[in-house]
């Protein structure tokens, strides 16, 4: 290891209005080091990354690149220094090939043939096999991530930043990614790994900088410290364990899918093929699967946004397949979508108004007129019970961080005391403490008699809260297996289309 760190931050601060997003943060990354930035939502991780990638200018503090002070004025400047960034949400075009996707990100002229060859070589060298001629919409999420990483590697970065890279991967794909990252580090590239998943950080990273409330509160050695210790550093208090009380399943199912079949809604969609499932009151059923395998089609069919044949969906015994959203909500079915802004909430409207969006049945409207006080009280109540960090009920939905808005939306839907709750990615982007709380709330709701269906890509989460788990792959749903009778390995294999028991 050389004496000089590749990247050093000294006392970097950034203020947004009243919020100090980064408060005198210092950290130092050595060449070839895999360095974790660990923190809850709103701890300042993304601001820090934006500063490093030139998207945001710090108010004060110093950035040293290989010992020399630098100013990173734009993402282009960051790339020229040798900083590459892999975002959580990919910025790729569906209708063009892998090579073309990479070409559009390169400044200036390019030769597509030579580029294709370079992509192939680079992929072979780091164990990132992707055929450059393939069209992007054919690729799985894991493959798309490889394209993003390859795109960075072509610039020969000295520092690669990855933002929550495993959120969308199967356990097997995570293994593969870790192999690539270790390889990269061994060749001298430093890696800044942003995550809140403690197990991964403990497995992969040598050093972790822990952010809390905008400040770097600790530098930890994740390989030697326990997950509980790291969690305590990150959250500041002890994280309670999930409590699973024994459950009494209702005899009749509350939600039934009987051979739910529908064609794909767009050329890149997935058709649903005879999806059959019964969810009883008092239980939590999980649907695992890599996104793009029919999840969005299944959710739209369940919520009523796209109606199907009458008999395909039954709620408490009555057929509702052809009924719309409003009719299903009246029968006690509520739904938390994966897209928070624009679907689960109206971005420009206040939290109070966003409460009214679906909770209008709770006495918030009288004789067609909105009752301001109950509306405000409802929003305040959700904010308080679910620990939503915001400026109050009049704060616009778009002003909240993703995790906080998620808490508000899940809280709003749970406050309706539904008979059937369908939730997609319930804790996606939500911090550890809040995720634990949301999972516990879901479990408690089911134990009060509700039927809960969770669609998630996070296997740990499904195994933590579900009583039974099924897998959705290419529009087909497997049989739901009791949690005790399966394992993450088996479900992970089924997610990639291999069913060991069926063979």
């Amino acid at each position, binding site marked *: 290891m050389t004496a000089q760190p590749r990247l050093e931050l000294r006392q970097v601060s950034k203020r947004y209005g009243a919020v100090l997003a980064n408060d005198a943060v210092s950290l130092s990354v050595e060449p070839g080091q895999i360095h974790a930035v660990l923190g809850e939502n709103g701890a300042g991780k993304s601001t820090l990354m934006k500063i490093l990638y030139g998207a945001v200018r710090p108010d004060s503090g110093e950035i040293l690149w290989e010992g020399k002070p630098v100013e990173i004025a734009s993402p282009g400047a960051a790339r020229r220094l040798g900083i590459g960034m892999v975002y959580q949400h990919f910025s790729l075009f569906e209708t063009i090939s892998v090579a073309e996707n990479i070409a559009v990100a390169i400044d200036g002229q390019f030769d597509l043939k030579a580029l294709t060859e370079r992509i192939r070589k680079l992929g072979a060298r780091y164990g990132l096999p992707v055929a450059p001629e393939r069209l992007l919409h054919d690729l799985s999420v894991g493959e798309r991530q490889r394209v993003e990483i390859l795109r960075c590697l072509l610039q020969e970065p000295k520092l690669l930043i990855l933002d929550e890279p495993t959120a969308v991967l199967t356990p097997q794909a995570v293994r593969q990614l870790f192999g690539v990252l270790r390889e990269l580090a061994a060749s001298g590239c430093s890696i800044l790994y942003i995550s809140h998943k403690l197990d991964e950080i403990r497995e992969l990273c040598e050093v972790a900088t822990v952010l809390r409330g905008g400040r770097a509160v600790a530098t930890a050695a994740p390989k030697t410290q326990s997950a509980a210790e790291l969690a305590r550093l990150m959250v500041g208090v002890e994280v309670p364990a999930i409590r699973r009380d024994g459950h009494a399943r209702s005899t009749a199912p509350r939600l039934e899918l009987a051979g739910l079949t529908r064609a794909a809604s767009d050329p890149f969609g997935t058709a649903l093929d005879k999806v059959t499932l019964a969810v009883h009151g008092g239980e939590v059923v999980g649907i695992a699967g890599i996104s793009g395998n029919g999840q969005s089609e299944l959710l739209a069919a369940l919520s009523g946004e796209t109606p199907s044949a009458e008999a395909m969906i039954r709620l408490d015994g009555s057929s509702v397949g052809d009924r719309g959203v409003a009719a299903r909500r009246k029968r006690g079915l509520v739904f938390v979508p994966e897209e928070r802004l624009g679907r689960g909430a*109206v971005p*420009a409207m206040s939290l109070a108004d966003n409460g009214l969006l679906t909770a209008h049945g709770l006495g918030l409207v009288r004789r067609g*007129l909105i009752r301001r006080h109950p509306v405000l009280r409802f929003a305040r109540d959700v904010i308080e019970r679910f620990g939503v960090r915001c400026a109050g009920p009049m704060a616009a939905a778009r002003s909240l961080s993703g995790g906080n808005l998620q808490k508000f939306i899940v809280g709003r839907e749970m406050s309706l005391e539904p008979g059937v709750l369908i939730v997609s990615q319930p804790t996606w982007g939500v911090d550890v403490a809040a995720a634990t709380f949301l999972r516990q709330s879901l479990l408690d709701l089911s134990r009060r008699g509700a039927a809960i269906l969770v669609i998630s890509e996070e296997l740990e989460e499904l195994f933590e809260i579900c009583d039974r788990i099924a897998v959705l792959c290419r529009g087909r749903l497997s049989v739901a297996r009791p949690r005790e009778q399966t394992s993450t390995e088996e479900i992970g294999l089924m997610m990639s289309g291999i069913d060991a028991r069926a063979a």
Partner: protein
Amino acid sequence: MRVVLERREEPLRFMQVGAPILALLLTIVLSWPFFLLLGLDPPATLKIFFVEPLSSWNGISEWLLKASPLILIALGLTVGFRANVWNIGAEGMFTIGAIAAAWCGLRYGASDHVWLLPLMAVAGAGGGMVWAAIPAWLKTRANTNEILVTLMLNYVAALILSYLVNGPMQDPDGLNYPQTASFEPAAMFAPLFSGLRLNASLFITAAAVVLSWLFLERSFLGFQMNVSGAAPVAARYAGFRQTRMVWLSLLSSGAAAGLAGMMEAAGPLGQLTPSISPGYGFTAIIVAFVGRLQPLGIVCGGLLLSLLYLGGEAVQMSLNVPASLARSFQGALLFFLLAADVSIVYRIRLRRR
């Protein structure tokens, strides 16, 4: 150098009021050289434009009389605009409303009944709604573009009016002029003050301001319309029915425009001629946006645009300038308003390449 727009973290509050004022100032700046080209003294022209019309009771009466239909139509349009339903057809709805009201007024005019005016009002609103139902039905059934359909129906309505006043509804004693007989006094609004044309229909508009405020800002249905305009996917998610929003938008704007047509026919006109509207249905679109789709803002916008009409007429009469001057003025104002609106949400930056 290139100009870039950056989204602000928070919309700029003072520009929400400042943008219309800035737009007015820019309009004046732009028109200054045009006044000079026409051989006019700009300050004096502006005085005739903005001050002269309001310097007498008669002027104020005319001001309110013109503002009233503009405000009423704009309130109706706003309901749709908030839900992203772009109705450009208020002019046609206004015309059909006036025709329906006039037919009632002529048919039962001699009866001298107290219910005659209310009947005409219902006929006017109903006529506008029937005309609005056509684009609503086509949009919800066949997914046609309401902008095109409503725009075309304006011409259809104008031709129907022209046919009627030249044929079935023509005044038999009218020396073959293309116009209907004059209404009986019972079929007309009484003036509020003797000698002035301002009449009791002003209270209809006042009531509409209160009602539309209540609907847009306080009712759950109004909230649903706002949601379907601001985030259509969220509206679907919450189970608000899109077809209902389209019908409601078009019917309420049709009713308002039709009622305004009735007020004009049974007010200052007293009969139908081929040109009953000086473009109220189109100007009201400007009014709605100048008032930024808020009932109280629309009142201010209606008063402003009405003043522009009167000012345009005043400069035409006293300075002998073309009639298109007032229209250019309105056009420039809307243009600058939309441009100034950008600054509420965006920051304009110059950036080196």
